[in-house]
């Protein structure tokens, strides 16, 4: 096992992620080269964008504060060791419902949070892209769902998603590149419960292959997904788009923390200040893209304030950092008569989107939707859930953990409403690089509470219908969305539909923070599809010579 303390992508070589210790050639740029794009963050947004822009012939340097792992030799089957994948730098969290950060929502690695995500690969419901005009809540996306649907196709192919042949909800989505995996016992609990209640269920579309794919062997169902897959069956950005970016001539700078975006007197971005290997450096760039996710992207923009934009870069609308969203992640757990061994296989092999596709039902007393999935937490993770939620300890905790192999659970991914006061600001306190820490304020609203109540009752009913007993409820949140939302109106959004900030024509955002609404499904595919779309938009804008938009 290794912790990467020193950068590995150096001297014209980058780690070969399909090997234990090999490298592959990498093009490198000097700090003084004015590259076409400096991208901050290499996750679902930045990784996809870096690959597609490099493939289109742009010069690209992509920075990540995290390490460049080789999963085959760097990842251990050990929950403690693998905490190296998370963004654990302190953030100040307050508000009526302070958020927890780290393993549940933020990664720090080349490949971003996709290195440790749980691979659930769902699409938004089409109507959510027009939530305000078609469903009467929140706000519309500045993008048509059909366009997004095409890009879902593209990224699902790129990640060889394994999914069912027919998906019960929403418009037809063609055939997933790989067949669905065999649903494990934990997933069959959901399936039995759903059949007993007469609602649809499906094997979850997952970003891990069910048959060989080149150098990726098929999934071996050991269930270590959340702490990083050590076989490369998982089709994370690290093994899909990052190698593509390298092949196309992008440079990836690992362990490179960007602290500030520099601007000239006209207010245009000129490059990024960053720290790497003990040095402070500056990379010149024609365009800068923020792709650090919902906390770090706003933090970077706020910290890059200048004389002309004293409240933060691209923040004339005072929207940077606002409309931060999470997913409600409440769960119901129960003891089953049969042995389940829920740790086997990816953690969420069966899903139910029933309440995402229902609008008029006497029982539905909330806006937005929620999905839920079967569960398979690793032991420490589950113990932590028990302790933080029910305060059990000592003998009682031991008794509860002894039931580990007979447990089943259902966990929701519930849409929260975008709210201006849920936001990221800068704290007084600074980090090791002297950058003010992120200060995150969060409160749930009544809609969240109603949805949570509804989901808990429904999931409990389903678990009982599947034969579960001794039900236990737990509460948490997952995923981050918004914080630098895109929109049609410069007064209420940070960027236009292309991810270009309204205020600075050569500054872009391309990650989960663009999302105007959160939807009731896990966000990675939507972030990737949006990034793939933005890459094509940038290509079109450059080809037509309109990349220099005269606004702001």
């Amino acid at each position: 096992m290794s912790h990467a303390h020193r950068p590995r992508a150096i001297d014209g070589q980058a780690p070969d992620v399909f090997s234990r210790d090999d490298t592959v050639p990498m093009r490198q740029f000097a700090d003084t080269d004015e590259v076409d794009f400096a991208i901050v963050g290499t996750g679902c947004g930045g990784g996809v964008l870096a690959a597609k822009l490099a493939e289109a012939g742009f010069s690209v340097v992509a920075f990540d504060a995290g390490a460049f792992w080789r999963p085959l030799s760097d990842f251990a089957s050990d929950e403690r060791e693998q905490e190296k994948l998370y963004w654990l730098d302190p953030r100040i969290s307050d508000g009526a419902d302070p958020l927890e950060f780290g393993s549940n929502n933020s990664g720090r690695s080349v490949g971003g949070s996709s290195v440790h995500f749980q691979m659930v690969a769902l699409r938004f419901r089409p109507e959510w892209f027009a939530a305000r005009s078609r469903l009467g809540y929140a706000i519309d996306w500045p993008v048509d769902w059909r366009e997004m649907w095409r890009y879902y196709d593209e990224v699902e192919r790129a990640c060889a998603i394994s999914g069912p042949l027919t998906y019960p909800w929403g418009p037809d989505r063609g055939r997933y590149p790989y067949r669905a995996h065999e649903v494990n016992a934990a997933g069959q609990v959901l399936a039995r419960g759903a059949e007993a209640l007469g609602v649809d269920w499906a094997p979850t579309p997952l970003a891990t292959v069910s048959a060989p794919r080149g150098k990726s062997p098929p999934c071996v169902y050991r269930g270590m997904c959340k702490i990083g897959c050590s076989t490369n069956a998982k089709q994370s950005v690290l093994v899909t788009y990052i190698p593509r970016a390298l092949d196309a001539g992008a440079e990836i700078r690992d362990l490179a923390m960007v602290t500030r975006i520099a601007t000239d007197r006209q207010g245009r971005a000129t490059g990024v200040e960053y720290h790497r290997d003990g040095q402070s450096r500056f990379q010149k760039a024609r365009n800068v893209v923020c792709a650090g996710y919902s906390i770090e992207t706003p933090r970077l923009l706020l910290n890059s304030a200048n004389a002309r934009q004293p409240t933060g870069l691209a923040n004339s609308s005072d929207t940077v950092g606002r409309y931060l969203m999470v997913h409600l992640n409440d769960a119901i757990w129960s003891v089953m008569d049969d042995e389940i061994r829920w740790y086997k296989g990816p953690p969420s092999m069966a899903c139910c989107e029933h309440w995402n596709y229902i609008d008029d039902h006497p029982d539905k007393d909330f806006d937005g939707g929620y999905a839920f999935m079967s569960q398979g937490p690793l032991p420490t993770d589950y113990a932590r859930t028990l302790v933080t939620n029910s305060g059990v300890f000592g003998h009682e905790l031991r008794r509860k953990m002894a039931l580990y192999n007979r447990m089943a659970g259902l966990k929701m991914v519930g849409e929260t409403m975008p709210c201006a006061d849920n936001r990221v600001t800068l704290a007084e306190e600074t980090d090791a690089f002297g950058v003010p820490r992120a200060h995150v304020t969060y409160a749930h609203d009544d809609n969240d509470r109603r949805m949570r109540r509804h989901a808990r009752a429904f999931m409990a009913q389903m678990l009982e219908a599947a034969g579960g007993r001794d039900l236990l409820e737990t509460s948490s949140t997952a995923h981050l969305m918004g914080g630098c939302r895109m929109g049609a109106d410069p007064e209420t959004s940070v960027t236009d539909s292309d991810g270009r900030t309204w205020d600075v024509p050569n500054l872009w955002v391309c990650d989960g923070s663009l999302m105007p609404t959160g939807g009731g499904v896990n966000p990675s595919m939507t972030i990737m599809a949006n990034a793939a779309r933005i890459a094509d938009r940038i290509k079109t804008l450059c080809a037509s010579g309109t990349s220099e938009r005269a606004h702001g």
Partner: protein
Amino acid sequence: MRPSARNTRNRDTRSAALGIGALAILGGAAILMQRRTQPKPRPKPRRKLRRSAAIMGASMLVDSAMEHFRGGFHNKAMLAAPVLAAASTLGATARAPHMLPVHATSVAVGAAGLGFHGYNIAKRPGGFNWDNLFYAAPIGAPGGLAVTGLLALASDAHTARHGRMLAGFTALATLAETAEVALLHFRGAWHNPAMYLPVTIPPIAAALLLEQALHPNPKTRGAARGAQRLMAAMGVVGTGFHIYGVSRQMGGWHNWRQNAFDGPPVSAPSSFIALALSGKAALDLMEGAP
């Protein structure tokens, strides 16, 4: 060439090309040899059928023993398949007398197994849907045991009429086997283009054989025979592919204790060799060889 960072771009075309090349050489040689050895006396149909039953039985034995072992033999009836496959295989190879009851039991148990496997699929949530067809008890597999028994019983065949019946039966068994392969290779997302071979060659071989069964025609019999030889060669090459397939699981053959179970079943493609032998025996019988 600059080494590539990315995963293999396309399907595994290199190994597919190698395999198809091997098949062309092997299959071509088999067909050419058929022309040359024409005047020499062929092995008797009876011997071919015994060999066919033995190969099919051995394939069934390995497959059912491994799969039912993996299932922990949690139902005692699961022991029946490997035990009978072993008995029928031994009976066929050793030319043991009085084996009729054993082979007949194989047929009966194989048929019953189809019911068991069907029940296993139906009882899962979702019933007869794609996912259960992929992953529950394989729907057609027990048929292989029944086919073993029938092939062993058929080794007494000696008339041209028997030959026609055997040709018809073999053609249908080949089509059933093809259907099973199609299902499982579809599950594997056809990740290697060579996975299309066993759903292409066998139906052609079966069609030519079926034609002989329905309208015996000496003029096209050579083609039918050639197709059987090609199918047998495909069984050999397919075994190679499955061995390679196991190596593509995490840990490859070093981790054979897991991967021999989780990878493609190495014993499966040989069933096409068995069917090809039976097909050739049928054609021999039709040509009047006792």
